[in-house]
């Protein structure tokens, strides 16, 4: 494959299109990286009635879109989609494939990587190209406050998943022109061994934490489940949403839905209150876009305190009580 045929692919994950912008965010980063290795940026779309998304991806910077369209592809299917992705990748040999770390993407990407016999890094919070032209995948690592730079030196393509909200999409340009390559569904497509019996919308109640202007996160430093509950009152006063760290979710102080971080939600509030959180990278990976961080912790050396705009050295629980009281006064007046 000659140099000028190099390409970076982005998997077109269009389910929940209006909430899920991760494909557009990945296209934006792919464009920046493609420049460094003189590659083209391509989106891959599988499904039925997908022209709308093909148009959107071109408007957001895809120079080429590979499309496999067929009624049989109407529903997302891990087996079929990963089979088709492998086939396309073997024919067109992309240098890099990015997949959004949606629930589907997190299952799809490892299957595709395994089929292709290549490496995959999960939940990258940074992507770059080094002096050797290799993709540097920056990901939280080792259950602590660490980031790892990972490369895939030999096997191709180089693959990474990225959480929604990690990169910024570029504004759309409906005058942009892209090449659309339509590929027929292979006749020898194996039958899907996992049958979809039914699918229904899962409705979550209320405001989404990803969109909240104020998020009140609590960690183990709150002390107990009972004390943790105080954050709910505070959060309500602030018109905010509750967030949590992994240990708190494990301890069942709060539902998994509230988990903020690498494996949970990526948030971008104007103000983030962080109560009794040490700041393991698994958590802080999800708060990189917070505007103003107020951290409360007894330990001034906690990573979270170092990341904060305002670091308050205090007992998280006592401070919560005092802050709630003062807010009530001020909101009333």
């Amino acid at each position, binding site marked *: 494959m000659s140099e000028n045929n190099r390409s970076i692919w982005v998997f077109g994950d269009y*389910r929940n299109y209006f909430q899920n912008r991760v494909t557009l965010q990945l296209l934006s980063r792919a464009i920046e990286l493609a420049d460094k290795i003189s590659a083209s940026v391509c989106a891959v779309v599988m499904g039925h009635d997908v022209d709308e998304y093909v148009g959107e991806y071109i408007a957001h910077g895809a120079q080429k879109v590979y499309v496999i369209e067929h009624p049989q592809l109407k529903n997302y299917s891990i087996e079929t989609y990963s089979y088709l992705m492998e086939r396309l990748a073997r024919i067109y040999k992309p240098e890099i494939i990015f997949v959004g770390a949606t629930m589907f993407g997190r299952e799809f990407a490892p299957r595709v990587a395994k089929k292709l016999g290549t490496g995959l890094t*999960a939940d990258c919070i940074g992507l770059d190209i080094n002096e050797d032209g290799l993709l540097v995948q920056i990901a939280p690592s*080792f*259950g*602590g406050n*660490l980031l790892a730079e990972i490369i895939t030196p030999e096997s191709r393509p180089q693959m990474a998943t990225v959480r929604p909200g990690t990169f910024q999409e570029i504004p759309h340009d409906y005058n942009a022109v892209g090449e659309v390559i339509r590929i027929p569904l292979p006749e020898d497509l194996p039958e899907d061994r996992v049958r979809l019996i039914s699918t229904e919308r899962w409705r979550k109640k209320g405001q989404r934490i990803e969109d909240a202007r104020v998020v009140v996160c609590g960690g183990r430093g709150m002390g107990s489940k009972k004390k943790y509950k105080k954050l709910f009152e505070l959060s309500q006063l602030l018109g905010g949403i509750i967030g949590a760290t992994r240990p708190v979710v494990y301890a069942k102080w709060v539902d998994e839905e509230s988990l903020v971080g690498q494996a949970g939600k990526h948030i971008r*509030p104007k103000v983030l209150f962080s109560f009794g959180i040490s700041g393991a990278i698994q958590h802080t990976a999800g708060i990189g876009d917070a505007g103003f961080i107020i951290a409360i912790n007894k330990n001034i050396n906690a990573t979270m305190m170092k990341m904060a*705009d305002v*670091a308050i050295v205090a007992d998280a629980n006592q401070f919560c009580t005092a802050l709630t009281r003062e807010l009530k006064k001020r909101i009333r007046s």
Partner: protein
Amino acid sequence: MLKLVVCIKQVPLVSELPWDSRTGTLRRELAEGMINPACKHALEAALQLKQKHGGEIAVFTMGPPMAEEVLHEAQAMGTDRGILLTDRLMAGADTSITAFTLAKAILKECPDFDLVLCGCYTSDSETAQVGPQLVEELDVPGAANVHHIELIGKTLRMKRISDNFIETLEMELPGLVTITTQEFQPRYVPLKGLQDAFEGSDITRIGADDLGLDMGKLGTTASPTKILNVYSPTAKKKNIVLKGSAKKVVEELFDRFEDKIGGAIRKDLKVEKKYNE
């Protein structure tokens, strides 16, 4: 007879562990370990299947020799045998090679399995990749992030939440599922049961030779991904530190940042008269 396989992982109890700066991998041998929480839910799912349908549960883990502990604990919960994959050559495997090695061991020790269950992700690395990659290695149907399973003959019916959809899926066994922490609350193991398990466990130890694999196929050497560098992310904020009693600090916070907070919550937080005790 229903043959169930559960793959579990020992994860560190503490989150801050030393890592080997030379190889860029975690020095797991220094950690106190526990069964990864999601793996415990997978064990519980297998135990419930066994209670309902009968059968046998083989538990696999890969790690340093001390990882044997989690196999004892699994047997205290009610599983039948444990297989420990331990070998220096296996160390430092990425998800792809971990899945490869586990698959080799499963096919050697339990080739006629009906269902493999894994936790949906581990608390120490959270990639959620080994389960799906094991599906590929074993070439069976599989589904990730399942919170409900029901076995009807050789058909497994599953439910999962995937990107705002509740999906009901079916597949014919043999197959593989990864189990979330939503349901299958793991059963409690009394200390006595744990002690008994340590004495009477059925554990098989497997090394690279037993699988007929050499260094070129295992561990760091075979892994397609390589770790270049590990570092601590640096802070870039102004970082104003406030200290004192909770009450005093709250006052100071509002004195200095009421506009900031008020702007975010779209409320005027100014008070005319300064608040005094």
